[in-house]
């Protein structure tokens, strides 16, 4: 027994010693860093140099647009140019990075705008990693002078994508309902603008009431609902030609149209008696397919980005809730279940272009909230709440939501944007009151991932 115990003790001791050596020889555990607070990246954006003296204004304009874009994204903190130590005089020469480290810049943008002999505008830019002294991106573009803002948006997307690893969303447009006049006789017109509020253009004259405009995947067409003489109808509007056509000729009212991801179909709700059900119409054959058949109100359908599923709003359970079903119809699964307020209702679901979330409007507790939820019904998160928030629409990269907020009273609605994490809520500038925003896809595809 003694021997056994001795052997056991000896064995265990040796094992421990051996283990200790093994532990000592083993690579040390990894140190872990998880920042607890999000901080925007300090970035220095220098004025784009003019290729000729007459290009100074456009150079400064491009710089301002890029600065504004990156700042509004909430991910970057452009450094005030007054703090710059070095003045860039030639973008083809590497900057003195120590000068930019001194002002805590992590990235530096330099550029040049040059008018070409053929009248076009040449835009060049470089994105530098100040810390490593390496060039992260460098591109040049040619365009007509009047499109200088769009060039600025494209460059912004390049910077955003290179720094974050995600596609940008700056080279995109927003269609919305512009509202003017007194509240009892409000004139509502379809309007389109750049995502930063510039270049507002009106698509209708306001003779008829328009609602729920939505972009086609190619950004060339808009579908919307119009209250003309008689029942409201769904229309297609071509942005380039200005022509419009009615989508189908149904006996009842048609609501809430939205394009399929391939742009070949329009899904909408059609009122029949006291109910409304979902229908999809093939734009080529003009054939219509019924997707739901319930004694309830099914409306606000939205496709998943891969086109295989649909989320929509239905009151088949008593109160409006969000359901998900296959794109061809069939059994629907309810995904919205309010934990804090059983009387809450969910509406206006929109599937993210990334497919990871569905945005919604939640009404409960006397407030309207904008939130997101995963398609399986988990991870619900409210991003903003207030008297009246409604109509969320995703940015092309799925990182930002735009919605409209109506404070009530004599005022009118305005557009706001918020990061899907709930941070960085900003008012979107519009000429007047604005509602029902719809974000277009990215107009130009930047470099592939």
């Amino acid at each position, binding site marked *: *027994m*003694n021997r056994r*115990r001795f052997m056991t*003790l000896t064995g*265990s001791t040796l094992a*421990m010693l051996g283990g*200790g050596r093994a*532990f000592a020889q083993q*690579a*040390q*555990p*990894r*140190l*872990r*860093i*998880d*920042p*607890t*607070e*999000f*901080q*925007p*990246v*300090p970035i220095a954006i220098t004025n784009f140099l003019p290729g000729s003296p007459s290009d100074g204004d456009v150079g400064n304009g491009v710089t301002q647009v890029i600065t504004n874009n990156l700042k509004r994204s909430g*991910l*970057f903190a452009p450094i005030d140019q007054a703090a710059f130590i070095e003045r860039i005089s030639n973008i083809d020469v590497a900057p003195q990075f120590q000068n930019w*480290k001194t002002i805590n810049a*992590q990235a530096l943008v330099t550029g040049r705008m040059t008018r070409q002999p053929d009248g076009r505008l040449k835009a060049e830019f470089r994105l530098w*990693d100040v*810390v*490593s002294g390496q060039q992260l991106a460098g591109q040049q573009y040619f365009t007509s002078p009047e499109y200088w803002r769009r060039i600025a948006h494209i460059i912004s997307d390049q910077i955003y994508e290179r*720094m*974050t*690893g*995600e596609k940008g969303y700056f080279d995109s447009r927003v269609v919305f309902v512009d509202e003017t006049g007194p509240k009892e006789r409000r004139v509502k017109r379809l309007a389109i603008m750049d995502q930063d509020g510039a270049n507002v253009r009106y698509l209708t004259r306001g003779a008829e009431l328009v609602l729920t405009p939505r972009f086609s995947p190619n950004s060339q067409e808009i579908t919307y609902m119009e209250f003309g003489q008689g029942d409201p109808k769904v229309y297609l509007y071509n942005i380039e030609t200005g022509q419009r056509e009615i989508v189908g000729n149904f006996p009842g009212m048609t609501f809430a149209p939205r394009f399929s991801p391939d742009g070949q179909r329009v899904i909408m709700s059609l009122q029949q008696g006291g109910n409304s059900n979902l229908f999809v119409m093939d734009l080529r054959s003009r054939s219509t397919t019924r997707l739901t058949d319930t004694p309830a109100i099914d409306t606000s359908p939205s496709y998943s980005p891969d086109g295989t599923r649909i989320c929509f709003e239905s009151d088949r359970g008593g109160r409006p809730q969000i359901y998900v079903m296959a794109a061809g119809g069939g059994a629907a699964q309810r995904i919205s279940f309010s934990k804090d307020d059983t009387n809450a209702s969910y509406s206006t679901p929109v599937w993210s272009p990334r497919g*990871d*979330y569905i945005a919604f409007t939640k009404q409960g507790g006397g407030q309207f909230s904008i939130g*997101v939820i995963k398609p399986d019904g988990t*991870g619900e*998160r409210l991003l903003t709440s207030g008297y009246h928030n409604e109509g969320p629409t995703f940015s092309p990269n799925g*990182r930002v939501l735009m919605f409209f907020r109506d404070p009530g009273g004599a005022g009118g609605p305005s557009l706001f944007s918020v*990061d*899907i*994490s709930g*941070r960085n809520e900003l008012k979107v500038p519009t000429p007047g009151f604005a509602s029902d925003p719809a974000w277009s896809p990215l107009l130009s595809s930047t470099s592939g*991932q």
Partner: protein
Amino acid sequence: MKVNVDKTLVASIALHVLVIGWGLVTFSSRAFVAPEESLPIDIISSDQLAQITAGQKTGEKDKPKPKVEKIAEAKPEEDAVGKVTEKKELIKTNSTPEPPPKPVEKPVEKKPEPPKPVAEAKPKEEPKPQEKKPDPAKEDPIAELQKKLETKKPPPKPPEPKVAAVQQQPKPKERPFDPAQIQRELDKRATTRHELTGTTMNASASLGSTTGTAVTNVATWRGAFQGAVKRCFTPTYNGQDADQYEADIDIPMKIDGSLASEPIVVAVRGPSRSIAQAVAESAKRAIVQCQVYSFMPKQQYDSWKLIPMTFGLKDML
């Protein structure tokens, strides 16, 4: 009935009993000791937090003990007086206006309040100077205060009317307007008590107890390094799936605390590779930007010659 008993058998049994009994006692006690010895080994190797607590948190608790022993010596006070005089000269030259007024304003504001509750006024005045003056010398300041009270303020003890008079006296004194006196008092304690107790009683007072492992504690530089890099780490992603992104980066270090070469991205994880790569680049920028890490202990260079780190975003949600 007689039973023949073999004496040798009895002796043999007795001896066996003795031997077995001795063996049980001795071996059982050894067996009881053995597992205790193995316990600390497990604790040390399992979690480095134990080292951190031994090096830092307990350090503050150990401080008061040696200082109490030191107070028993009378001589240091004499030395302290000498040091105080030397620093008075310095104070006269460095009489900065801003710092002194602040500490003085507070007592002035509080003093107008106490007059109503007369009895409470006294105790409030006494603790205030103690709080402003260095924490460690808790008992020494009392001795000094007592000496001062004996020399300067013998009368305050008398009844209530005199107490009220004493309370009103500080107001006319208006310490805020005479910052030099306050600086002298503060400097006396800061310079004399701190240094004396620290150098004579506890050589590693700032690091912890003398029995701790602070000096050779690997966890100490690990924590400091983490904090230094974290300060510069500004990832550009804060989506709701941020917790799924991680980047493993190895950092080759020089003995002077600078980078021996560019940080090496060992692996990146996350739903989107491009985003994960951006997280890794952001981490690399942080590592390079925050160098030189001159606080790294040179005698432990072997332990941080190559620092493996993982950068994640799980706490950003």
